[in-house]
C-alpha cells in the first residue's frame, strides 16, 4: 500500500466543496458523519468484503493481453477486469457500500442518476438485494440509446423516470435526482454514481472504488515483481479512474493517465473532454472543471459513450490535473470504437465503449513508453449494453433483425 492517505474532502486544493441548496446540507452532514464512522468500522469492512466476495465476484482478475499489446508498441498491457463484476462494471463496488450506508442511516428508499445505465442497474440490483424502494433518473436521450439497461432496471423492480428537461442526458438526470432528494430527504438516500457532486460524495465514492487499485497493485507486484510504469482509465465523472489511481497516487514512479471522451474531436464543438477543454466553475454541487460558455451556462457534451457524456468531472481529478500528478488526454469516438473492435478481435473480450477510451489511450501510450513498460488498464465494464450502438457503428446488423 502507498503511504499517503487520500484527501478526506471537502476540498481538493481549490476544488470540491458544497454548492448546494441549504435544504440538502443536513442530509450531506448526516451522510458524511455516517460514512466517517462506517469506513473505520470493522463489522462494516467485513460485511462489504464478504458481499464483494460472494456477490460481486471480487477480487476481479488481472488479464495480460499480448495480442492486443502488439498494437501498443509491444508494452506489457494488463487489464483489471471490472467487466467481470456482477452487473458488468465497476459501479457495483460503490453501490453496495452506499446500500449498506443507507441501511445504517435507516432510510428505506434510494434514488440515483444514470447515464449509460450501469450505475442505475447496479443501484437497482442493490435495492433488490437489500429490499429498498428504488427510483432511477435517466435522461430521455440515454433511455433510447441504452434501452436494454432500462429493461434490466425495471425487471429488477426499480422505477425508471426518463428526464425530459435540458439536454435530456446525464447532467439533467442529476438535476432531477437532486430535486427528488431535496423533496424527500427524510426518507430517501441519494446513491451518487461517481466521484463528483457535493462533499462527501467525491471522497466517499473514491473510498468505495479504491478496492480496484488496492487489488491491482498487489496483483501487478505478484505478476511482474514491480509496480507498473503507468496506470490508465477512462474518465467520465471519474470513479473508475479514482478507483484504480488511488493506490498509486503515492508512488511517484507510476504515471497516471485519464482518457476523456473527445467525441468528434476535442477541437470540434462536439466532445466531452472536460479537463482538456473546460475551465473551473461550479456544477452539481462542486467546484471543478466543466464545459461552459462565457456566461457560465453549462454546455452540452457529446460522446458515443453515454457513460462519458458528461460536461463535468470529479474535483479530485481537477486537482490531480492541475498539480500534474495525473495527465488527461482526449480520445475520439472513432479511436474508441477502433480499440473496442481490436480488443474484441485480438483477445475475445468485448469492452464497454467507456472502457474502450482507455484502451485507445493505451495504444498511444504503449508506443510512447516502449516495450519495457508495463501498463495497467482499468477495464471498467463490458460491452453487452453497447451492442446496438456498436452494431450501427460497424454496420453489422441484419436488416431483417433490425426490423423485428
Amino acid at each position, binding site marked *: 500500500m502507498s503511504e499517503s492517505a487520500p484527501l478526506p474532502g471537502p476540498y481538493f486544493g481549490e476544488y470540491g*466543496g*458544497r*454548492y*448546494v*441548496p*441549504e*435544504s440538502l*446540507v*443536513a*442530509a450531506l*452532514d448526516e451522510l458524511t458523519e455516517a460514512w466517517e464512522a462506517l469506513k473505520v468500522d470493522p463489522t462494516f469492512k467485513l460485511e462489504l468484503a464478504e458481499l464483494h466476495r460472494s456477490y460481486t465476484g471480487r477480487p476481479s482478475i488481472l488479464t495480460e493481453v499480448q495480442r492486443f499489446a502488439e498494437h501498443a508498441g509491444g508494452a506489457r498491457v494488463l487489464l483489471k477486469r471490472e467487466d467481470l463484476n456482477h452487473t458488468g462494471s465497476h459501479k457495483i463496488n460503490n453501490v453496495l457500500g452506499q446500500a449498506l450506508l443507507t441501511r445504517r442511516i435507516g432510510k428505506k428508499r434510494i434514488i440515483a442518476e444514470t447515464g449509460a445505465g450501469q450505475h442505475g442497474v447496479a443501484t437497482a440490483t442493490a435495492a433488490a438485494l437489500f429490499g429498498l424502494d428504488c427510483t432511477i433518473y435517466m435522461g430521455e436521450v440515454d433511455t433510447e440509446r441504452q434501452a436494454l439497461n432500462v429493461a434490466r432496471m425495471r425487471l429488477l423492480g426499480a422505477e425508471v423516470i426518463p428526464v425530459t*428537461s*435540458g439536454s435530456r442526458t446525464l*447532467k*439533467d438526470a442529476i*438535476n432531477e435526482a*437532486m*430535486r427528488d432528494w*431535496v*423533496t*424527500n*430527504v*427524510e426518507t430517501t438516500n441519494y446513491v451518487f454514481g461517481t466521484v463528483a457532486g457535493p462533499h462527501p460524495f467525491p471522497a466517499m465514492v473514491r473510498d468505495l472504488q479504491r478496492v480496484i487499485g488496492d487489488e491491482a497493485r498487489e496483483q501487478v507486484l505478484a505478476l511482474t515483481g514491480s509496480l507498473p510504469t503507468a496506470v490508465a482509465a477512462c474518465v467520465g465523472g471519474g470513479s473508475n479512474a479514482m478507483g484504480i489511481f488511488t493506490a498509486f497516487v503515492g508512488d511517484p514512479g507510476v504515471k497516471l493517465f485519464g482518457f476523456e471522451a473527445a467525441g468528434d474531436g476535442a477541437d470540434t464543438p462536439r466532445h466531452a473532454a472536460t479537463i482538456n477543454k473546460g475551465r473551473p*466553475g*461550479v*456544477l*452539481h*454541487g462542486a467546484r471543478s472543471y466543466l464545459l*461552459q460558455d*462565457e*456566461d*457560465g*451556462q*453549462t454546455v452540452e457534451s457529446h460522446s458515443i459513450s453515454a457513460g462519458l457524456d458528461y460536461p463535468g468531472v470529479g474535483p479530485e481529478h481537477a486537482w490531480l490535473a492541475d498539480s500534474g500528478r495525473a495527465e488527461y488526454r482526449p480520445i475520439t469516438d472513432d479511436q474508441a470504437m477502433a480499440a473496442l473492435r481490436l480488443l474484441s478481435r485480438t483477445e475475445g473480450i468485448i469492452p464497454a465503449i467507456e472502457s474502450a477510451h482507455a484502451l485507445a489511450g493505451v495504444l498511444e501510450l504503449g508506443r510512447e513508453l516502449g516495450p519495457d513498460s508495463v501498463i495497467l488498464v482499468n477495464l471498467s465494464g463490458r460491452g453487452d449494453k453497447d451492442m446496438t450502438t456498436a452494431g450501427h457503428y460497424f454496420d453489422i446488423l441484419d436488416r431483417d433483425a433490425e426490423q423485428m
Partner: protein
Amino acid sequence: MSAAVPGAVASTIAARRQAGSGALIGYLPVGFPDLPTSIDAAVALVENGVDVLELGLPYSDPVMDGPVIQAATQQALANGFKLRHAFEAVEGVRARVDAPVLLMTYWNPVLQYGVERFAADLRDAGGAGLITPDLIPDEAETWLAASDAASLERVFLAAPTSSPERLKRCVELSRGFVYAVSTMGITGARADVDRAARTLVDRLRDAGAENACVGIGISTADQVREILGYADGAIVGSALVRALAEGGVAGVADTAARLATGVVA
C-alpha cells in the same frame, strides 16, 4: 430614482412591518418570455402591490426549481438570454419604479463573470443585492467581501432541517432578509404551505433574525395573509410565472393585485 439606497430591502420590509403588515416579494425570470416583456411584467408587479422584486437569472441547471420556472428559464435561454441582460433588466425596472430589486441567481454565472465585477455592475445598475439558492455561507467568502465592498444586500436560505448553528450563521451573514424555505422541496405552487414554515420562522427569530420572509409554494392571497401573520414577507414565484405565461403582462398584473389583498393589515 435608479441608484439603490444601501439596505433598501431591509428598510422596505421594516416599513411594512411597522405599518402592521409585511412585504409581498415577487419573483419573475429575466428574459421570459423576452427581455422587454420581462421588464414590463416586473414593473407591473410593483404597480400592483409587490414591495420587493426578485429577478431570476436563467441558468442551465436550476436544481432548486420546479417545472413552471424551469420551463420559463429554459425558454429565456433558448431565446438568447445573456448575463448582461440581467443588468439591463434591473436598470430598466429601476428607471420606472422605486421598489428594491434583488437578483436570484445560481452561483456559477456569478463566478464566471467575476464576483467583484458582478457586484459592482449590479450596484451600478441600481440592484439591491443577490439571493443565492446554491451558495451556502460555508462557500461564500468571496461573495461576503464583494457584497460588503459594493454595499449590496445578500439573502441566504434557511431550511427546516438547518441546525441551530447554521441558522445563527445564516442570520448573522444575511442582509435584507433571511429566506425561510417553507417546505422541503423545490419551487412550485402547493395547496398547503407547510406548518414547518412557522416553526422555522420562530427558530430564525430565536437566532436573532429581524426580517424573515417565507418562500416556496405560495400562490394565493390567503396564504400570503397567513404567512404575514408570523413572517415579515411572503415570496411568490411560480404562481406569477404561470400567470405571465398564460395571461401576459395583464395577467401577471392581475395576479399580483389579487395576492396583494393578502397584505392588508
